């Protein structure tokens, strides 16, 4: 089964259970882990996780340690840290590493739920973006070198005649390449072409 998943990691049984039950009230699937290493061992969870609710101080691998491991694995997951120790340096480190939020235990459970939802939405958006980007990229990759040249001329706002002159080919050849580009990139108009190319460039940045 695939789909968004919220993962809760906390070594305290009652906290873990209560957070699981709480997040389930959002109607989201939740998986709970007593240690950070258990998360790393669950490939399915790593694949689907949209939000990690992570205790900072745990035996074995700490929450911040897990955050670093995930970063090295290239898995960008919004992480909400929860800690019974709100030490300033710890918060600083977690936030610097890109934590989505940091909540001190005990917290207003509604704040946690709101932040979990936001995190899940962010993750979903990120996944869509990257899926779309992968799709666009594969389409761009299907272009021949000559088609790519013509596409760049089109995006650069040059007329067919100018593109023909630039590339030293006939107008007719430009028109053929042009329709092939539109077809391969699955766009109906020049405007749409420009939009996806610009957007993909921005995503890559």
């Amino acid at each position, binding site marked *: 089964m695939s789909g968004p998943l919220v993962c809760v990691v906390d070594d*305290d049984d*009652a*906290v873990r*259970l*209560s*957070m699981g*039950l*709480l997040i389930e*009230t959002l109607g989201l699937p939740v998986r709970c882990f007593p240690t950070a290493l258990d998360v790393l061992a669950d490939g399915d969870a790593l694949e689907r996780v949209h939000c990690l609710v992570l205790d900072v*101080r745990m035996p074995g691998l700490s929450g911040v340690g897990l955050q670093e491991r995930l970063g090295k694995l290239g898995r960008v997951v919004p992480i909400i840290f*929860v800690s*019974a*120790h*709100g*030490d*300033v*340096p710890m*918060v*600083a480190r977690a*936030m610097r590493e890109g934590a989505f939020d940091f909540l*001190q*235990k*005990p*917290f*207003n*459970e*509604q704040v946690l739920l709101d932040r979990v939802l936001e995190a899940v939405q962010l993750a979903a958006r990120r996944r869509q973006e990257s899926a779309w980007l992968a799709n666009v990229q594969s389409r761009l990759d299907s272009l021949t070198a000559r088609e790519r040249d013509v596409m760049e001329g089109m995006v650069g706002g040059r007329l067919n005649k100018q593109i023909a002159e630039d590339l030293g080919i006939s107008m007719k050849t430009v028109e053929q390449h042009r329709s092939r580009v539109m077809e391969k990139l699955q766009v109906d108009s020049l405007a749409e072409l420009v939009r996806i190319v610009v957007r993909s460039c921005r995503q890559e940045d």
Partner: protein
Amino acid sequence: MMPSGLTEDPGLAEASWRLALEAAGDCVWDWNLRDGRVACSENLREVFGDLFAEGEVPDWRDLLHADERREVLGRLEACLDDSLAAFEAEFRVRCRSGGPRWISARGKVVARDEAGRPERFIATFRDLTAARARIDHLQASARLWQFALEGHGDALWDWSLVTGEIDVSPSFRAIVGWQDGRPLCGNDIWPERLHPDDLRKAMAAFSAHLAGDRPITEVEFRLRVEDGSYRWLALRGKIMERDADGRPLRMIGTVRDVHDRYLGIEREKRQEQELARAARLIHVGEMASALAHELNQPLTALRNFSGVALRRLEELGAAGARIREPLKMIAEQALRAGEIVHRVRGFVRKGGLVAAPVAINGVVRSTVRFAEFEARAHAVHFVLELADALPMVQADQVQLEQVLSNLIKNGIDAMSAIPGERILQIRSRLGADGVVEVAVIDCGEGLAEAVRSDPFAPFATTKPDGVGLGLAICRTIIENHGGRLWVESSTARGSTFCFALPSAAA
């Protein structure tokens, strides 16, 4: 040399007593007033010194020291007049070598004519110089002794238990502030001027010695001085005279002004108490820190479970309405308990100070960064005015961050009710004596009356959910760094909290 012109009956007896006198060191001076001739014993030079040449018999009256001359000659005159039965005097005479000599003279008119006019006057002179020197020495050493006692800060008193009169030294009078030398009674001083709290102790010390239970009276007490204030004095006294039955007659002793020492002791005692209090606070901090994690876990679960229950209650609709309110309260109280734990814990880290050179501006910037979340939630803007090129301070960065974040949080809270722009200024600058000062300035409503007198006192708080340890622990931290934390000002337009830390180089 035999005196000439004496009466014809000198006889053996006279020669004998003259010899006896000479052997005792006395010079005999035999004056015939009828013809003015003088006969003098051989030892004249021994007594009067070398002013006389060998064989010369000048008049001793010419040698008199100016200070005594008038007095001595007056007495001699009175004796010759018969208005004085005997001539007695002590005087100085000039001497060729050394200082003046002290001479003791005793004389008598031994013969008068029918009209009562003196005919013969005999006197003996004795050299008192050495004896006088001994007396002077004794008096000087007595003065020295007194001087030594007083120089040591001891004032003297001499109390007659018979008359009750007490003689006190000038320095005693100076302590009490008595300007004049009027006579005093022991009762005027004790118990009259004793501090009520010391009265029983002081009188017990006197009684114990008077009753023979103690070898001396030794007691410290406060004595009221002339300006009405009390000074701490240390008294020592001893009975110096008793009557035949052993009843004490006279007591002599010293008092020493130990006021400053006493104040010092009290100050030290206060400092010790402060330290103990600080230690207790740190202990509380550590304990709380350790407990916080354990407590926060069940509190989190409690809050979460009640949250879950509340949400499931929604599914029951109206049926769950009566349970909802108490359930909400459980949820609220769980958070409140957590707040209290948070406030108490974490200010003072276990293991004490980890001091290293720290750039204060860096501490300010990092703390402000962490506080941004909360500031934004309360619509508070930070304005930083940080001085360039400040020296480093020797400090535990984490503890400084805790202090600053606490001051910032207080500043944010102070502005929660004001309608206008909420600005929290943080300034750093180089203060006097090379200290680095940081000021946190809010534009809130100022300190509440309840905490204004001592906002740093533990458990002083105006926050409904506060425990009032924040500033107390902040101050402990700053003071542990050899610095100072204070309220620069607090008015209806805002408060300024400052702390100063010594620079790392200093």
